[in-house]
């Protein structure tokens, strides 16, 4: 235990001694002016080399890449806008075509309807005319039949009157009987 304590004391003393020695012996290498020309010379060499590397190779390259990227992005956005515009145009064209087609369809339907109406009207008119003609003919025939019938009635009446007169013992004068019947029928 005692030896350990002694050891520790020794070590710490050693350390302190070392530190003091270092401080005493070297001082700060930063203040060793004999090394200054060397450091400054190599620093200037290093700076010139770095500056040359940057200004000749690295910076133009990076600038070109960044400009390229900017251009690509701008180009892509422009292209996207172009496509959007084209899509809108296509949609408008589609809408227009649809509207045209619908109008065309309506027009065709209207025309067809008008044509059918015309045919129909013509057919109706023709039918009407035929009906009118038929009915006129019918009326004429009815009139003929009626006239025929009336004439027959006249004849029958005269014949009947003559027969009746004869039956009654009279002598039938045909023209007198006819006149009498006519007078009676008119009456």
């Amino acid at each position: 235990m005692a030896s350990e304590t002694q050891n520790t004391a020794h070590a710490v003393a050693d350390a302190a001694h070392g530190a003091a020695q270092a401080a005493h012996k070297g001082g700060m290498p930063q203040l060793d002016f004999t090394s200054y020309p060397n450091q400054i010379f190599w620093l200037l060499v290093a700076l010139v080399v770095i500056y040359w590397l940057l200004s000749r190779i690295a910076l133009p390259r990076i600038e070109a890449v960044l400009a390229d990227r900017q251009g690509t992005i701008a180009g892509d956005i422009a292209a996207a806008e172009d496509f959007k515009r084209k899509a809108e145009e296509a949609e408008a064209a589609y809408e227009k075509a649809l509207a045209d087609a619908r109008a065309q369809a309506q027009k065709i339907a209207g025309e067809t309807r008008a044509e059918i109406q015309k045919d129909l009207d013509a057919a109706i008119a023709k039918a009407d005319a035929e009906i009118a003609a038929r009915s006129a003919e019918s009326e004429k025939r009815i009139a003929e039949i009626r006239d025929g019938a009336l004439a027959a009635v006249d004849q029958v009446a005269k014949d009947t009157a003559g027969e009746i007169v004869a039956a009654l013992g009279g002598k039938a004068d045909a023209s007198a009987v006819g006149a009498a019947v006519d007078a009676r029928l008119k009456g």
Partner: protein
Amino acid sequence: MANLEQEMRTELVFHPMDQFIVKPLFGDGPVHWYTPTNVTLWMAVAIAAIFFMLVIGTRGRAVVPSRAQSIAELAYGFIHKMVEDVAGKDALKFFPYIFTLFLFIVFSNFLGLLPRSFTTTSHVAVTATLAMLVFVTVTVVGFVKNGAGFLSLFWVSSAPLALRPVLAIIEIISYFVRPVSHSIRLAGNMMAGHAVMKVFAAFAPLILLSGVGIAVTPLSIIAIAAMYGLEVLVAFIQAYVFTILTCVYLRDALHPAH
């Protein structure tokens, strides 16, 4: 066992500042201005890292970026936006210069966090050079752009007339102190964090020496982890601060009127 203990004891020494010593890469000679040193090595590593991130990473030039390319673009966008927002649109011609500073600092800071690495930005020589470059550039740009009108930066026209000479002196002093604070802030932050970590690290092997180590060793290891987390934050924040201050100074140079 006693042997090992002895060995460890001799190794429990504190050299928190040794990590900052500038050494020649080859041999052990003197450090001339042209000598390849660990400074050279770690700056070269930083350049290589920047090269990989910004050149190799973007070689696909993809419109839809890969991960590496996104990181490069993110860094570019981050600083580009900062320059534009803070310093104004007309400061964008300085963007490569500011981006160079930012990349150098941020990569040096993070590379310095690798164990056994050397942190170039922990040296005042480096950060002061960076700060002086900014200071000189900003001052030259200010006078070239505005002529004598640049001096209106020191003449606070919104203050009462009597106060203006006093404020002018303060403004001039603060203007010349800028490179000092600009450089010491970065170097100080990097150096302090790394030195503190090294101090904690020196306490870690105490368990091999004595019973106190049972408490001290876990504590120091936890402290190292915590410091490391903090240093990751500091590495980025200091690079950010250095860059945004450069932008602020540049704005003053381009638009000196208060």
